[in-house]
């Protein structure tokens, strides 16, 4: 096997280890502060959750960069190269001195399996997303555009309203819901959906779902659900700010939920009482309660900055630690 391939294996292995470390860190944070986080004001909560969701990926990138920093330095200034002090059996995490020994065959097999599984899953998910985007586009092209309301009316009696699309999201409102809602309720619903469009929630949600895959399954599910609720609540707050008051927003949510429930009861018998139910309850209760003051994320930003700097300062130590751990597990 070529030396380059052996080196790539080591980097990949290190990357996966860092990813796992990030996922572990995120699980610890969620375990310690998850309950407290759910009481935050929705916009700050959404941002904090998004940061948590991207923690494994971000930490893998940062740690991999920091761990290969000494080798990058050696690439630029050969005098600073420290690799010659190691023997050839050492797992060099290095672009200059390629490792003489590859990783264990069993581990290699696992690596191949993991990478192909991830690629396959990503391909399936991507094809579904592409199809969903095309379906949304087909609905938008064949629906009736109401430029006075800024929506496309979809010809169906099912009472639904949603913002959809990744790069150019639009608001779709079904004829069924259009007929049921009063003009005041409609204004609330549309203000909410326009807030989704402004915030690009669909795009953010899509990225977060992709990032959630590397978390522990339970943590990933929790993050995606909480992010959705936070996005909905943030849009509720915006709708309340532009509209009349918070109680009307709560009333509109219940109105739409009620008609969706009636329609569902007409068409299909089994009705799941699950996440959606809790989301409606939380949204309505939050709107009826006192609004939370906006929360600054500066402490979080400072913490991230400090950990970034310390990782870069400790790059040499991280490099050696990673090489030692790789030597133990890879051979």
């Amino acid at each position, binding site marked *: 096997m070529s030396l380059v391939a052996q080196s790539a294996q080591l980097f990949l292995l290190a990357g996966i280890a860092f990813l796992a470390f990030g996922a572990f860190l995120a699980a610890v944070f969620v375990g310690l502060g998850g309950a407290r986080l759910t009481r935050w004001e929705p916009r700050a909560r959404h941002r904090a959750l998004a940061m948590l969701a991207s923690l494994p990926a971000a930490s893998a990138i940062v740690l991999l960069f920091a761990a290969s920093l000494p080798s990058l330095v050696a690439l630029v200034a050969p005098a600073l190269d420290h690799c010659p002090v190691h023997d050839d059996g050492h797992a060099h995490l290095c672009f200059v001195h390629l490792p003489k020994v590859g990783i264990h065959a069993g581990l290699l097999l696992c690596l191949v399996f993991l990478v192909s599984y991830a690629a396959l899953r990503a391909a399936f998910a991507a094809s579904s997303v592409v199809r*969903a985007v095309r379906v949304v586009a087909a609905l938008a092209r064949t629906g009736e555009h109401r430029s006075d309301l800024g929506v496309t009316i979809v010809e169906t009696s099912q009472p639904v309203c949603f913002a959809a699309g990744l790069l150019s999201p639009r608001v779709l409102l079904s004829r069924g819901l259009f007929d049921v809602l009063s003009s005041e309720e409609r204004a609330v619903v549309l203000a909410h959906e326009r807030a989704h469009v402004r915030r690009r929630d*669909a795009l953010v949600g899509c990225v977060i779902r992709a990032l959630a895959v590397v978390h522990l399954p339970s943590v990933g599910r929790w993050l995606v659900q909480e992010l959705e609720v936070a996005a909905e609540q943030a849009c509720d707050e915006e709708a309340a700010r532009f509209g009349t008051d918070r109680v009307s927003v709560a009333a509109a949510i219940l109105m739409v939920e009620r008609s*969706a429930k009636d329609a569902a009861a007409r068409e299909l018998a089994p009705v799941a009482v699950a996440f959606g139910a809790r989301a409606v309850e939380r949204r309505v209760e939050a709107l009826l309660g006192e609004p939370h003051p906006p929360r600054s994320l500066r402490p979080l930003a400072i913490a991230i900055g400090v950990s970034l700097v310390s990782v870069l300062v400790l790059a040499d130590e991280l490099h050696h630690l990673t090489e030692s751990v790789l030597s133990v597990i890879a051979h």
Partner: protein
Amino acid sequence: MALVSYVSSRVSEPGFRLGLPTDDSEPFVLRFLLPSPYREALLLVELEGLTQEQMAEMLGISLSGMTALWSASRRRRGEDGVGPTPIDGRFYSGYLAQVKSAPVRPPLLGELETAVMNHLWSAGDGEVKAVHAALGKRRGITLNTIQSTLKRLFEKGLLVRDKVSHAHVYRARATREDFHRDLLGELVGGLMNGQADAVVSAFVDLTERAGPEQLERLEALVAERRRKLERGPR
């Protein structure tokens, strides 16, 4: 489903006769206790001479699923002199499980195809020249392009056509409402393994509903708060 209404309208047409080889006077497919729209689909293959491929596409099931359904319907009819005629639909449970689990995927249209469908939905029907007059001139495309688009849509099962003197008159097989319902069904019916949620932010969750007591409790809370507000803010 458009298919169901279309077939029932065809069957109820005056002078309608089934040219099917049946053991008795009753059309055999109608006796299958298949749920809609599969029953109608089988009938349509006989009625319209549609290929199984076209049928599978209209139903949004795989070709192998359609073939299985079709060959079962023929075999069970007792065509080869073996086996009983199904009355209770039990024979189909296996095939149905296969067919039902397949997602319904409405066909997606290109830009010109969409424009043609939009035109036919609002105009009702039209021959090639009329469609060209409405769409082609503005876009600077030829009659031939419009003709092939109409033909393609016909082959996709979205249009039906009648021959009036020398020209085909096309009209939409399904209404705009049916088309939208199928598209929406794919988006919100959980058919995309939840991936559709990623591009859709619905006002209330589209697939899961609050429980009845919960909804009533929340509605009471809102009503109470409204009464308080009406009494006047202090």
